[in-house]
């Protein structure tokens, strides 16, 4: 039924050139049948009158120029969706990996999605309690937000992400909740950690997992986040669920993108990454959000490891420009033995303002948050000063701030992996810390809240 081409003229990494093509469309899905009968898929990356450049989604291992057949399928890559997706595990290209059957499609969705019309977006404003003080208190997460975790090798981002997935809830509501987990290039051990955690807590029942391990073809990673997000869109906007999407690790995804760009001999941007990395990442991250008159939502937690802990590396840099804040993990806190090692000063949640306060968390939340930031920043400055001049040279006030910073890290930041703190507990801890500082120093807090909470 489809015309078969035996005219592959070159294969280079993930790129295949097919000659003498007719009526091929841009971005069309392609099936390549290897001479051993294996079928691999790809998409049209560029098409001219009699030639098509195909990017394979799967490994080109074993592909030969003479015997392979190419079919153009006339449609883009799709994901078969149905409510049966929940509880299933797939590989990075969407094939079942748990031994279960193929999904019988209730609907087929283009994995590239379509942009949400900005005028129908509903502004995220529902506070999600993660039970982690550094997030809830300092960088609150809201439903429909995209908040990445900037980590680095050797830091416990997996544990933190699992803890968030386990504890996240919206206060006072019982709603349909699901987790979509997209893993790109992580190790077996990491994947196993998540699987066990999901099984242990029963979360697996309401989860969909797409897993591409470190030893699996790198080019399949291009599809993995798109499959995950398409699945999430179906669960959120067709089945009215609140979906938390975890994408780990975006650094490997970007490296695969770079590999394809290099194979195409494109002019590289910074550090060899393609110039369109920003646009490409945006088409993924921007799929998170809420839509007016739809019940469900997509909250996105991408995890990436910063090469050399460098925040200005293109991957964290461009991610930060697209996402609504970032949670940054710090090696310094990790060395002090503090879990979770969230570095609150450079971390940020841009959507906090409409998600917290009266009726949502507590009226004083925003002021407490700002004041804790300011005091901790001052405390860290004092700490630096003490290193140069010795603690004795500090003014009395600076000594207080230094003490504040130490206690802040030890009590407020530090928390057990199984410990779930309510937002009220977190705020109370914040006030306890603020009472170390003289009242007239607390300029970021409105007088009426000082009146109400400081003296207690």
């Amino acid at each position, binding site marked *: 039924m489809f015309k078969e081409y035996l005219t592959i003229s070159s294969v280079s990494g993930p790129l295949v050139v097919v000659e003498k093509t007719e*009526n091929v*469309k*841009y*971005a*069309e899905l392609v099936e390549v049948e290897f001479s051993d009968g294996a079928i691999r898929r790809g998409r049209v*990356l*560029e*098409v*001219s*009158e009699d030639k098509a450049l195909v990017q394979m989604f799967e490994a080109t291992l074993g592909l030969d120029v003479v015997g392979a057949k190419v079919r153009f399928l006339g449609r883009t890559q799709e994901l078969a969706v149905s409510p049966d997706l929940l509880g299933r595990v797939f590989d990075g290209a969407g094939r079942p990996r748990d031994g279960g059957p193929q999904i019988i499609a209730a609907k087929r969705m283009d994995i590239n999605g*379509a*942009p*949400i*019309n*900005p*005028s*129908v*977006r*509903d*502004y*995220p404003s529902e506070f999600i309690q993660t039970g982690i003080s550094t997030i809830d208190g300092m960088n609150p997460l809201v439903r*429909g937000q995209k908040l990445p975790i900037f980590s680095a090798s050797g830091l416990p981002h997996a544990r933190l992400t699992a803890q968030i997935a386990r504890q996240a809830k919206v206060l006072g509501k019982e709603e349909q909740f699901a987790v979509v987990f997209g893993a790109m290039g992580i190790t077996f051990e990491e994947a196993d950690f998540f699987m066990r955690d999901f099984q242990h807590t029963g979360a697996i029942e309401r989860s969909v997992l797409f897993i591409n391990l470190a030893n699996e073809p790198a080019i399949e990673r291009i599809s993995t986040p798109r499959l995950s997000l398409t699945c999430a869109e179906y669960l959120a*906007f067709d089945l009215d669920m609140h979906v938390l999407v975890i994408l780990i690790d975006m650094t490997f995804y970007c490296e695969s993108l770079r590999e394809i760009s290099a194979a195409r001999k494109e*002019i*590289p*941007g910074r550090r060899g990454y393609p*110039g*369109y990395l*920003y*646009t490409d990442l*945006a*088409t993924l991250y*921007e799929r998170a*959000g809420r*839509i007016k008159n*739809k019940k469900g939502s997509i909250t996105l937690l991408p995890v990436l490891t910063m090469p050399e802990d460098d*925040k*200005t590396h*293109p991957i964290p*840099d*461009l991610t*930060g*420009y*697209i996402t*609504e804040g*970032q949670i940054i993990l710090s090696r310094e806190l990790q060395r002090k033995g503090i879990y979770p090692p969230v570095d609150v000063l*450079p971390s940020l949640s841009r*959507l906090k303002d409409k998600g917290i306060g009266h009726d949502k968390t507590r009226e004083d939340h925003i002021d407490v948050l*700002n004041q804790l*930031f*300011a005091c901790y*920043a*001052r405390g860290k400055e004092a700490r630096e*000063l003490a290193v*140069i001049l010795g603690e004795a*040279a500090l*003014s009395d006030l600076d000594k207080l701030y230094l003490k504040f910073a130490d206690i802040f890290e030890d009590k407020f930041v530090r928390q057990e992996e199984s410990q779930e703190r309510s937002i009220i507990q977190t705020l109370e801890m914040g006030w306890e810390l603020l009472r170390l500082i003289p009242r*007239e120093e607390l*300029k*970021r807090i409105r007088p009426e809240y000082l009146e109400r909470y400081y003296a207690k």
Partner: protein
Amino acid sequence: MKPSKIIKVSGPLVVAEGCAGAKMYDMVRVSEQKLIGEIIELKKDLAFIQVYEETAGIGPGEPVYLTQEPLSVELGPGLIGSIYDGIQRPLEVIRSVVGDFISRGIEMPALDLKKKWHIRPQVKSGARVVAGDILGVVSETPLIEHKIMVPPEMAGEIVEINEGEFSIREVFARIRTEEGIKEITLSQRWPVRKPRRVKEKSKPDELLSTGQRVIDTFFPVAKGGSACIPGPFGSGKTVVLHEFAKWADAQVIVYVACGERGNEVADLLLSFPELKDPRSGRPLLERTIIIANTSNMPVAAREASIYTGVTIAEYFRDMGYSVALMADSTSRWAEALREMSGRLEEMPGEEGYPAYLSSRVAEFYERAGKVVCLGSDTRTGALSIMGAVSPPGGDLSDPVVQATLRVVKVFWGLDEKLASARHFPAINWLISYSLYHENLEDFLKNNISADFIDLRKEAMRLLEEEASLLEIARLIGIESLSLEDRLVLEVAKSIREDFLHQNAFHEIDTHTSLLKQFYMLKIILEFYHLARERIKTEEDFEKIIKLPIREKISRMRYIPEDRLEEFKKIEEELKNSLAEYV
């Protein structure tokens, strides 16, 4: 002649043959789906087309339709309060037709064709008119009187003009010109890449007040000026631009969200109908137009969005309004240029950006200005442009930042350190500058007070002194500084924390009028002057910096605009409490 057809597709770039007769920057329709595109390069009969929509499913052999018209916007009543994508398609109408996700090949008039507007003619038949003359007025919103002007390059005698209800494409007047009788409707079209004509440009000499203390007092922008705000992510560019859009003292605001976040647009759409213009008390949406081409929308339309925005802004400027345009972020626009340039296989300049980057940036910012509009009434209008720049890693040597700094007159440099200490707006006072101070001196003298200029200079001097004193203190300890120097540190800290720091999310602090800014700065510096005279001993110093009046100073920001007389009381109290130390 050969019919035009596609021979190659590569992402948003489509190459078509058989396009002889097409002109550069003409609009075309690609394939049967009629996707909108624009010609960006011609080689014999080959046309290189950037397509403003997703090109998946398009292939060689499909037709291309030439329109012989450059990419244009439709200008007329109904613009205000709208939200458009990068090529002026109305997003709210699209939503009602195709649903929550944007699909392709949608062609829709930018303005409501059915809606009737009441036009009140301002001239009579028989009158002679020239380009830019106001023919009639439509009350578009309670804030904006939409003036229907004689289209550029037209002059003649009015044959007919009617009062009454017209839709935007109905003829309400006829003008006899040298080329015959021309019909006039409420709307006109204008190509986006061509600046609209003005009679002449003049020197920007009025302050565009934004309600942001660090900007209005220290680094002001004039009406008709241009400014840029570069900074790394998380330093608060967007919040600052949103604050401008809310509080800037302009009559019309055009906000271009160019390749940025969808939720930020949602935020504007949610808050603007509710927020009130501080001068008129009307909802801010009644003076605002939003162009939203978010980062996940097609990249070529992102390139066009800046031009669409600035053309609409110029149109309102031509009516004699003061217009402010915010572009967030010009880096995303430059990246769209780079992407198209790469696909055209052009030789790259710095960082892969095309060699013409800086000339494009300069052309864009040059469309700002205070002008005498076309028309015989010599009305003036102003277009101020403020652009955010998002350099990688916050590095100011980025080509887009450098190209921008060469043309803009105001630079607000955002500082990551300030942002992580939650000092907002995180504008670093030591690196930022404004070249409008001299232009604005007369304006400040006439509208606020001649003292304002001296106060600003003194405050700036204290801040600079603070920076060098802190270096010394870091080396030898703060105790070794003289009392006078320590007072400077105290006062500079007060300027930073009580004046420069401003909370965008506090209902009163979010906007400070110029007059209130003047009072605030005056009191802070008055404290400095009085204290300096009175500090003789270490004991005095400790007491004076702990006086209760200082807490009042730190809370001045929360004094509502309608109770500015409280500043008199604070001044009084300040004098009294320091009088004891004489």
